[in-house]
């Protein structure tokens, strides 16, 4: 059986496209791949078997922002919603919101480990990206004024602590520290 190669185990001397399927049943190695999907150099898990593949970047190349087919498909799905999609007064999702989300997700794909968010529409024609783990939640809501951020630290389940921020829409790179906050429990909420 061929051992699964994660990004950190892979040889960093070539740009290689590794075929999927052949590595099913492989060991997980250094990270829980079921929770770290859709990033360059990562295997994509599908019900325990590794059926998709990602390029492994060479150290001689600058990592490229990347948007997985799954996330791209979700954005397209949201962009196709019509007015009244919730059987109420909801508006179709603005193309500006979809494009902004695409830009942010590509930027965040450079942060390790990257975990794809849930992407949900909002009734007023925008969208929201959200991540949840056992100790923290992070939400980026697109608004015309900027990205409305909410980070909830729920280690103390009796009194979860809310953190908020507003990040300009054109400052996608400024969202990276907040995403790192979510995936690194030791970090405190970034100040702006």
């Amino acid at each position, binding site marked *: 059986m061929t051992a699964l190669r994660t990004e950190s185990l892979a040889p960093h001397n070539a740009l290689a496209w590794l075929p999927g399927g052949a590595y099913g049943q492989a060991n997980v190695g250094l990270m829980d791949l*079921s*929770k770290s999907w859709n990033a360059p150099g990562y295997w994509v898990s599908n019900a325990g078997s590794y059926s998709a593949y990602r390029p492994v970047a060479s150290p001689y190349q600058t990592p490229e922002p990347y948007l997985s087919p799954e996330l791209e498909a979700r954005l397209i799905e949201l962009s196709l*919603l019509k007015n009244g*999609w*919730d*059987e*109420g007064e909801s508006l179709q999702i603005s193309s500006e919101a979809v494009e902004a989300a695409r830009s942010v997700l590509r930027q965040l794909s450079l942060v390790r480990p990257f975990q794809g968010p*849930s992407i*949900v*529409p*909002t*009734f*007023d024609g925008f969208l*929201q990206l*959200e991540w*949840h*783990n*056992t100790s923290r*939640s992070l*939400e980026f*809501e697109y608004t015309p004024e900027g990205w*409305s951020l*909410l980070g*909830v630290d729920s280690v103390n389940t009796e009194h*979860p602590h*809310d953190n*908020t921020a507003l990040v300009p829409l054109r400052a996608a790179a400024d969202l990276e520290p907040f995403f790192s906050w979510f995936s690194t429990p030791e970090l405190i909420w970034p100040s702006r």
Partner: protein
Amino acid sequence: MAFEVEDIPGDARLFLRVHEQYFVPSNDPSVKRPSSACFKKPELSVNWAKYSSAKETAKPTSAAVVELVARECKSFNQTVIHCPIQDGEKDGPNQAHSEIRGPKTHSTCDKFVRLSKVVWIRNHAPV
């Protein structure tokens, strides 16, 4: 006969349908929860449990129905109003129809998530 508007007591249970677009994986990926986006409308339509059930609240596009308690909604600057829909009106008749009204910030919506309890999931027995 027209439905009368009643005062909703603090201990009243309110059912909110969760559209399939709003039902997302929680911190346990095998368990779903409503997104905070589900609670964002300034006038949030719910059904008062006095006149409806969770199952009756669901629509074909609902993934789930959650329960809220009126008193808890009021605790963060919301008002809970009984506004029954009469026969002949759009989406009527619905004697249970009520609204949770008030500004809903991002943090407020998240509080709604924490206070809500999933009481019906499509294709599952009531929980």
